[in-house]
């Protein structure tokens, strides 16, 4: 199943294949990701879920000998057809498993980094965007007094992850990819990120890779189950976790394998 007919499509994936050298990591993936909703990607280690999200913003091709075929469209943007990778990544933000703030930069500079790289120089406007991004990432109230005093690396793990989300939001992407964003966080910090995802999906299309199925069930409206590089089942989250159509999905989510 794909996004429902009356739901706007945020990311359209058609016949996507990906390789690492001769090893095929993704096989013929087609799915429509609903705009302004959260979609979870689940599956056992090595099933291709991280490769899948890395194909959506052309991070996959940064690996040596990596190759992709197929089509990915984000609105009018054709990700693999003549669009520069840098331009794609400007529209598709990404948050990784381990928070990766620029350690020598202040909190402010971390958030402003993407815009500055894009040549943005209006200081007053930059202040405004940094503040708004930090507010959207629900971090502003905790750090507003230390914006330029403290480095990004001085924050707690959960705060660093929200800082990275703020950094991704600052360039106003259409899509936000999250690759196991809470796996290194304690339950309180994870809860804050999950609450944040709930707020962010009002404005952004979110694709989240997670090993935590309860988390997928809590935050995502749609869930795709990957196995051995294939998309086995893609449906509404409530259906996937209560009465999946595929036996392999059921066996995985009930812990019978994986």
């Amino acid at each position, binding site marked *: 199943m794909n996004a429902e007919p009356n739901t706007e499509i945020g990311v359209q994936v058609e016949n996507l294949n990906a390789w690492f050298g001769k090893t095929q990591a993704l096989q013929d993936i087609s799915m429509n990701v609903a705009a302004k909703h959260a979609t979870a990607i689940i599956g056992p280690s090595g099933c291709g879920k991280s490769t899948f999200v890395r194909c959506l913003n052309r991070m996959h091709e940064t690996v040596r000998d990596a190759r992709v075929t197929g089509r990915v469209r984000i609105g009018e943007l054709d990700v693999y057809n003549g669009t520069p990778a840098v331009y794609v990544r400007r529209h598709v933000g990404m948050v990784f498993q381990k928070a990766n703030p620029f350690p020598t930069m202040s909190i402010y500079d971390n958030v402003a980094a993407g815009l500055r790289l894009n040549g943005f120089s209006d200081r007053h406007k930059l202040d405004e965007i940094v503040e708004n991004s930090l507010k959207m990432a629900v971090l502003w109230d905790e750090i507003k007094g230390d914006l330029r005093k403290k480095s990004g690396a001085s924050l707690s793990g959960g705060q660093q992850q929200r800082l990275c989300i703020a950094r991704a939001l600052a360039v106003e992407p259409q899509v936000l990819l999250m690759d196991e964003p809470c796996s290194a966080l304690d339950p309180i910090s994870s809860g804050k990120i999950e609450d944040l995802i709930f707020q962010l999906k009002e404005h952004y299309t979110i694709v989240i890779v997670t090993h935590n199925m309860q988390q997928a069930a809590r935050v995502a409206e749609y869930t795709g189950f990957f196995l051995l590089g294939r998309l086995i089942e893609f449906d509404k989250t409530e259906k996937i976790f209560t009465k*999946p159509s595929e*036996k392999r999905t059921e066996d995985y989510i*009930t812990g019978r394998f994986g």
Partner: protein
Amino acid sequence: MRTRFQQALDELRQRLLLMGGLAEQAVDRACRAYTERDLTICHMVLEGETQINAAEREIDELAFDLLAMQQPMAVDLRFIMAVIKINSDLERVGDQAVNITERVMDLVEMPAEELPVDIPRMATAVGAMVRRALESFIEGKAELAMAVLEMDNVIDRMRDEAFIMLVKTMNERPQATRQALDALLVTRNLERVADHATNIAEDVIFWVRGADVRHNAIPETTAPAKK
């Protein structure tokens, strides 16, 4: 494979089966007490009710722990949900057995009256429904459960016929009114037991197929086969 979790699910299944055995036995005994006007059997039903209530609490506690600690999904989640609901239905079956014995204890104080209602036949049919519902749970077979749903109509007809005949008796033989009223209440209790057996069967279908067939609902989708 989550071995410990699967062991805990097996334990839950075993405990529910024991509970089912107790509830089934309670109905059998209550009906025998009615037929034989036997107070000793009545007391056995009342004592058994304590065991059923204790078993209900234990099963609920185990199911609650599994929900909280193991966070089950899909067929496992449906199984635990079904167990919780079946557990409640079985406890109510035990209550109905107690209600029947209370009628018996009332009846033994009165002169015997010939009544135009075949309680043993109805009890046999209801007992068969409970047994089949439990078998469908043991086997995890929705087809067996479906057969239970079809049996419910037969019991409803028996109750309706009994109602007509017993009201007629009350009109024609006022001296038998109290006995007829007790018999009427027993048919009502048995019909309720059949309703609980129906609920159990519906819960088994939900567990196995992921389909909600309550209140004659047409299932939207079905989950993959359990095994």
